[in-house]
């Protein structure tokens, strides 16, 4: 059976395909897939899913390898091998709020898609906050008064700017990462090792 690789749909997918092509792989079957969520190439089977689901498919061994954002891994903490960063999908985690925000002395309300990361961040700081879980467009929350601030990923900062928000504090940096199922990496080593080495930035020549 061909190794199964789970890809995060959307923006990360395009960046991965560019990278994959730069390594000399043929990406045509992956770009001409239409709406198919499962595509076979000569070497692999690819499945396309949302980031957190990529982690889940790899954890449960449906996929052997996965390409997923480091932000998703930090948030979902799947039980997988989290091998190495890939040279795309860079972003930062940041606390952002309205420009000129005057903080009250009360307990802050923070809106985020990343409730796990938010909780860990404020716990580390020793500050108690109330966290509100949102699914997207989190920039709305401070503008409309749902929260005092947001915790979200920032790439260029344009979305924040256009919505009148500024970064208060940046605290984590992420990129896309290669993850592997815990037992597949061991028992399918012969099949997986070549592709892992090839996906490694600098061709894996860092050591030895």
């Amino acid at each position, binding site marked *: 059976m061909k190794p199964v690789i789970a890809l995060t749909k959307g923006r990360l997918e395009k960046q991965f395909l560019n990278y994959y092509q730069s390594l000399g792989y043929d990406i045509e079957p992956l770009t001409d897939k239409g709406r198919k969520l499962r595509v076979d190439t000569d070497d692999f089977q690819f499945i396309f899913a949302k980031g957190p689901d990529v982690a889940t498919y790899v*954890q449960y*061994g449906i996929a052997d390898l996965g390409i997923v954002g480091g932000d998703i891994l930090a948030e979902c903490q799947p*039980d*997988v*091998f*989290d*091998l*190495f*960063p890939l040279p795309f999908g860079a972003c930062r985690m940041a606390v952002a709020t309205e420009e000129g925000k005057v903080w009250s002395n009360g307990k802050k309300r923070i809106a985020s898609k990343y409730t796990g990361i938010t909780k860990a961040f404020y716990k580390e700081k020793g500050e108690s906050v109330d966290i509100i879980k949102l699914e997207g467009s989190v920039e709305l929350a401070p503008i409309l008064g749902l929260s005092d601030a947001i915790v979200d990923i920032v790439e260029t900062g344009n979305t924040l700017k256009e919505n009148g928000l500024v970064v208060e504090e940046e605290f984590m940096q992420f990129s896309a990462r290669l993850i*592997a*199922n815990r*037992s*597949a*990496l*061991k*028992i399918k*080593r012969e099949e997986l*090792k070549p592709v892992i080495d090839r996906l490694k930035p600098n061709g894996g020549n*860092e*050591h*030895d």
Partner: protein
Amino acid sequence: MFLPDGSQDQIGKILLKKQHVYQIFNDVAVSRGFKAIETPVIEYADTFTNPHVGMPFQQLLKWFDREGAIEVLRPDWTTAIARALMKLNPKESKWFYQGSVFTQDKDGIESRQAGIEMIRTAPIEGEIETLCFAIDYLSAVDVSDYVIELGHTGIYETMIAPLSLTPDEETKLRQAMHDKRQDVVKDLTQNNTRVQQQLLDLIDAYGDVSILDRYKVKYQDDDTIVTIIKELTQLVNVLEQLGIDQTIVDLGRVKQLPYYSGTMFRGYLTTSGEECFSGGRYDKLYQQFNQSIQAIGLAFDVDVLAGSVQVEELSRVAIIASEETHVLAELKRRTMTDKIVDVVYSEPNEKDYETIIDLRNEGAK
């Protein structure tokens, strides 16, 4: 009515398979001189969360007793048995157990295990006996598609010794090794490039047993590592002689509980990739009782094994009887000890039985 995640009622074949897995385990353990032990399902949390054992408190199923102490459902057999053996102080050193453990993790709460514990058993003797047990048992339940992986706590620990890490840094580095997270291992060891290179290589030191030869040469000047590699090579040879030629190693594997102190092993089912057993040496476990006792053990995942064993179904016989001939049918049933026998008063469905015997008119004769 609903059940919690992972909990399930079971009937039919899967239950038969589970009973089969337990039964054969019992037979193999008894025939190899192991004595049965059972500890209570309810214990104090501290037995499992004290620093010697170090199970994460969040994972335990817990509540307060009347005095306000925290009680838990048994999350781990090995620790419970160590506590029991220290109290009972029996002279035997080979023990086996079977039953459920309860932890809150992603796969639900209850999982079933069958395992062995050997105390006062020195290195190599204990490792060989434990691995032989695993092979013997898996063969007895007719599981042949598996791979055994060997590891050792000592390689990583020897390598990081020069780093003098704080406990917090050590936890982070261990987690990064556990996740084979190369970039984080690199960051955490940047003050010592020699150790950094060693650990980055160690992350990748998994696969077939030729890695042992490579490490034997690479670390020929380090007595501790040379001894460990020799031990592991010896075990590989034992496994080979017993017909297990697919052994793999992961020299970069790190312990997940603080009491592990030597060889670690586990078995993967080749087809599904599921882990069917795991175990290792934990000579440090008994330090909490101020005792220096060597110990080793392993546990089989009964749920995983039950999913992959085949049980032979006995042939089914229906005896049609009446009130007058029911006793006759019962006497007939007693002669058919290797079959499943139903006594019925009406015509059974032919598809359900291989043999149908009609005794309704026998009494009249």
